[in-house]
């Protein structure tokens, strides 16, 4: 096990800068998710840590040691590829044994390690199968067993669950988390899926255009995104803009709302975000709120999206669409086309850079 430090790394493919001065640290034994839109450089960063790409600038440290001069096969990493890359000419057990055999290990030790690894991913009964006789989820677990059986210092996972359907995917997330905790290996997990990143990892790095936009614990990123990109990429957000002065924000339509403590002294143009589930919807504009403690806008209900325990409303506030997620705990008295007041606590307002 080892920590991984990426220091000021840049990489260009021809004229295209795929990674731009990326710095991020992965603590020993942590479970990291790298999240970002397609083409943001997630795979490139992962391949660079693995040793398939070399940085033009900057350096990568594994366990505190620079690895620029260490080739892939000497880095002692484990990697699960997006398409699993199971060796088709070998059985499940031979696939898992591969990493041990190429190190020259033989005999009962190998068999024990292989069966332990297969048990860990609950595939002990399929050891003799050929790869083409496996389902997608089983292949993925073979790839995982194969990657961890060599006791790598770092486990790199490139969208390993993206090919699975939703149910299997949920199961595998839980399983992956369990295995990671059991093995305790530093894990870097690339994903497109924000929910997956939030639920599975203990830290998240968001990539955009080859740069880290924000990095932190899931709650921290969700509750305190620093940019509109981070706020909208990870979850939904209502964006509010205006001019700040004296602890209040004056919007384009003249409405004034209170700013949280941290922005009490801001002045000038300011962008803020508010999560839809932090918004309360009051029918008929009868809210009796303290205007120094809560933001309030009035609007008309335009859409309602019912999803069982929750309802999502789209509310038109002077031409701006405002999303509100409301738990369905009682009588539903918010009607389409009716005037409502949306309010939130001033501390729930997120100040964006």
């Amino acid at each position, binding site marked *: 096990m080892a920590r991984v430090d990426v220091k000021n790394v840049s990489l260009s493919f021809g004229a295209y800068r795929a990674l731009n001065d990326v710095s991020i640290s992965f603590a020993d034994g942590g479970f990291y998710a790298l999240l970002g839109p397609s083409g943001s450089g997630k795979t490139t960063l992962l391949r660079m840590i693995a040793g398939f790409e070399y940085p033009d600038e900057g350096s990568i440290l594994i366990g505190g040691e620079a690895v620029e001069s260490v080739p892939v*096969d000497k880095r002692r990493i*484990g990697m699960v590829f997006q398409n699993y*890359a199971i*060796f088709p*000419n070998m059985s499940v057990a031979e696939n898992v044994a*591969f*990493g041990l055999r*190429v190190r020259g290990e033989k005999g009962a030790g190998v068999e024990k390690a292989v069966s332990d690894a297969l048990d860990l991913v609950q595939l002990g009964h399929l050891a003799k199968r050929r790869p*083409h006789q496996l389902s997608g989820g089983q292949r993925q677990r073979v790839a995982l067993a194969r990657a961890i059986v*060599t006791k790598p210092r770092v486990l790199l996972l490139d969208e390993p669950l993206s090919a699975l359907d939703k149910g299997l995917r949920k199961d595998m997330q839980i399983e992956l988390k369990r295995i990671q905790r059991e093995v305790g290996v530093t894990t870097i997990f690339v994903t497109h899926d924000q929910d997956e990143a939030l639920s599975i990892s203990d830290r998240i790095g968001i990539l955009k255009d080859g740069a880290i936009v924000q990095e932190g614990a899931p709650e921290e990123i969700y509750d305190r995104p620093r940019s509109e990109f981070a706020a909208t990429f990870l979850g939904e957000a209502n964006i509010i803009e205006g001019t700040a002065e004296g602890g209040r924000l004056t919007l384009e339509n003249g409405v004034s709302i209170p700013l949280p403590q941290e922005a009490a002294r801001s002045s000038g143009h300011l962008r803020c975000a508010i999560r839809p589930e932090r918004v309360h919807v009051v029918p008929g504009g009868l809210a009796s709120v303290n205007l120094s403690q809560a933001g309030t806008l009035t609007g008309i209900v335009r859409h309602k999206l019912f999803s069982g325990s929750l309802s999502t409303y789209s509310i038109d506030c002077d031409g701006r669409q405002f999303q509100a997620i409301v738990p369905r705990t009682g009588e539903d008295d918010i009607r389409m086309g009716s005037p409502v007041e949306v309010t939130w606590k001033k501390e729930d307002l997120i100040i964006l850079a």
Partner: protein
Amino acid sequence: MMRSSSLLSGLGRVYIGLVLVFLYLPLVIMAAMSFNASPFYQLPFEGTTSWYAALASNEGLIASTLNSLQIAVLTTLIATTLGTAASLALFRSDFRGKRALQALLFPPIAIPWLISGTAMLIFFFGTGIGRGLHAILLGHVALALPYVIIVVSARLQTFPRELEDAAASLGASRWQTTRKVTLPAIAPGIVAGALFAFAVSFDQFVVSYFLATPGQTTLPVEIYAAIRKGFTPEINAVSTIVILFSMGLMLIVSRFFRFAGDR
């Protein structure tokens, strides 16, 4: 609909039948005649194995057959090894002029052997390599190499690169990756390339003819020389043996490797 498709499949059968007849009937006749007593293809058929007995004492034919086999096997080994290595290098690395190099592999296949043979003769003569079995071997390897590279490279096109990456991430060296992952996956392509190499060499007449010397010659050249002197049914006999040998070889190979599928 049903009628026309059954008509088509009927026509298809006739067509395939004709193809097989044209391919195999001459061979069957030749094999039959090798057991016919008359040296002039005269009927009625009178069974004999005397031509095979005569063949056994025809040292020229036997020596040249052995030469042919030896050269074909060596050509296959050398061209397949070099060609596979070259295909892997082309697959793995990106360098200036790679495309040009790949494009240059095709013309030698289209150049008439008569011209290649003349060029080789002049070149070998000028460089002091001279003529003889070693020159024939060299020439055959040169002729077979592009076939192997093209066939193996085609197979590599469908080989997922991540398999090599995965092997490296598991600690396998380049050589271990090649031996345990890449070569098994492209084995059908390598076998197909080897068959081409064998056929190019074993079939080869023109280039061999230019490079052979009286004592050092191959079967096709020897047969040609024998026919020019006067046809003898021993040639039927040796041809029948060669046909059976080649067919047996191909059948064995095709039993071990299915060319269409991977598994």
